[in-house]
């Protein structure tokens, strides 16, 4: 079995994978980072979104071997080591942007990428359009959109990081 090496949430990791092992499987099963979820088999749902070299990517549609040498950030890598949450995470909590939580890591990772590409002053139309690759079955999206707008604004302020409860 070929070996693959990459950096995940700032830590260098190595694992033995099959050629067909998906990045999401490597994260969940080899590294036990189960915050990244699998919700579909067509790349549509977005529950698997992580950042690969700073860009939001669907980890269900990447082979682990394709990520040799890459820098990966997952949902587990957002909060400060001390526990303070990222402003975007906090915004989801403050704005009731989640119910079952299964789509939430993918939504948060996608949201950060929207901010990277479109800035901190996001209007509703932009957010809804840019979330085309993320599906939620619980909330009807309304509060997710509110959360992302609020999180984007909070990030501009340098982000008030609140301690984890």
């Amino acid at each position, binding site marked *: 079995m070929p070996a693959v090496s990459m950096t995940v949430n700032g830590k260098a990791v190595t694992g033995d994978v099959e050629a067909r092992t998906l990045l999401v499987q490597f994260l969940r099963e080899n590294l036990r980072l189960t915050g990244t979820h699998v919700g579909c088999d067509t790349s549509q749902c977005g*529950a698997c979104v992580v950042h690969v070299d700073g860009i939001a990517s669907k980890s269900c549609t990447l082979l682990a071997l394709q990520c040799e040498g890459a820098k990966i950030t997952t949902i587990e890598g957002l909060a400060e080591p001390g526990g303070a949450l990222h402003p975007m995470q906090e915004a989801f*909590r403050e704005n*009731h942007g989640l119910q079952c939580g299964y789509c*939430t890591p993918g939504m948060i990772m996608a949201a950060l990428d929207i901010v990277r590409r479109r800035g901190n002053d996001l209007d509703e139309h932009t957010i809804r359009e840019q979330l085309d690759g993320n599906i939620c079955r*619980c909330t009807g999206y309304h509060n997710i959109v509110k959360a992302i707008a609020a999180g984007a604004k909070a990030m501009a302020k340098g982000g008030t990081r609140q301690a*984890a409860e």
Partner: protein
Amino acid sequence: MSATGIGAAVRRKEDFRFITGSGQYTDDVVRPGETRAAFVRSPHARAKIKSLDASAAKKMPGVVAVLTGADLANDKIGNLICGWMIHSKDGTPMKMAPHPAIASGTVNHVGDAVAVVIGETLAQARDAAEKVKVDYEVLPAVVDPAKAQAAGAPQIHADIAKNTIYQWHLGDAKATAAAFAAAKHVTKLDIINNRLVPNAIEPRAALAEYDVGTDHMTLWNTSQNPHVARLVISAFVGMTPEHKLRVIAPDVGGGFGSKIFIYPEEVVCLWASRKVRRPVKWTAERSESFLTDAHGRDHVTHAELALDAQGKILALRAKTIANLGAYMSTFSSSVPTYLYGTLLSGQYDIPSIYCEVDAVYTNTAPVDAYRGAGRPEATFVVERLVEVTARQMGIDPAECAGATSSRRSRTRRR
């Protein structure tokens, strides 16, 4: 508004683990020595299993076991059940066809399981599942509920004529007929409430662990009601006595009803875990969810509304064919009966209602409660009737049927 006490916003307690990716959904749980299950499923809507050869699959790397419907029957594991008895108009009980957790004689819907492979890894289990050779004799199938009772339609289950599960009714047929006879306007509508697939973003999953030392079993399951699962799997499926079964629903990623029911997969995982004496985990792929999660709705209805010249409703009657799929799911019988017929008045004052429901088998995925369960179906019927009536009679739907006026007049009389 103060920060605490009455009127203060209350934050949810569970959000912290979800926004940090530290939730524990069933697939996240890992048990030492865990094996993975992959099901072999019928590609046909209806077929006879002529033969099943697992010999090649058993030799594949990492395969711990390949188990079939025959193995399940030999171990005397009971069938899945529908727990809600409904009687037909003539008093006969509903016709519940046997529903084994793995099919052995015939398969009755695309996705019906015929075998399960237990492997060291998921990839190995899936590879071996592809090597299980099943020889099917494809049989004619019926999938349209409106055609399931027709003369000449294939009879899906032995001894269940016209694929009819029950013929139920509710209300006063005579009074309703009289009201229709006296009506100045009758609206008639044929509507279909199409089948829906719930598609919670978290696919269904089951992780079963048999404890060799104590003969106890633990099931982690994407269940909306672990107590019901524990009861049904122990007392009705007969897996093990209730006190020897623990069912844990950890974090569940949406259900909307689809995770209420007791499915074949958790039964198979428990049984397989006891056979191989190791934990067995199964997680659905999305395509597998489409095939095997209980679907919703699937009604074909002829509905009529009787009104007087002023647009006050006198009566409503509806005849519905409810498609329950290939097997009766856990609560299926209740959805198009007591959760449907009793809701047909909607928000309107309707003096007489008569509702007839025929529940039928078809070669499709089982249908059960989904996000409203019968009540959205009833709402659709009554609101469509009122809307069409308003257009036909040239009145405002909001004023139609004396909805507001009859309520106002009742209030004034007090």
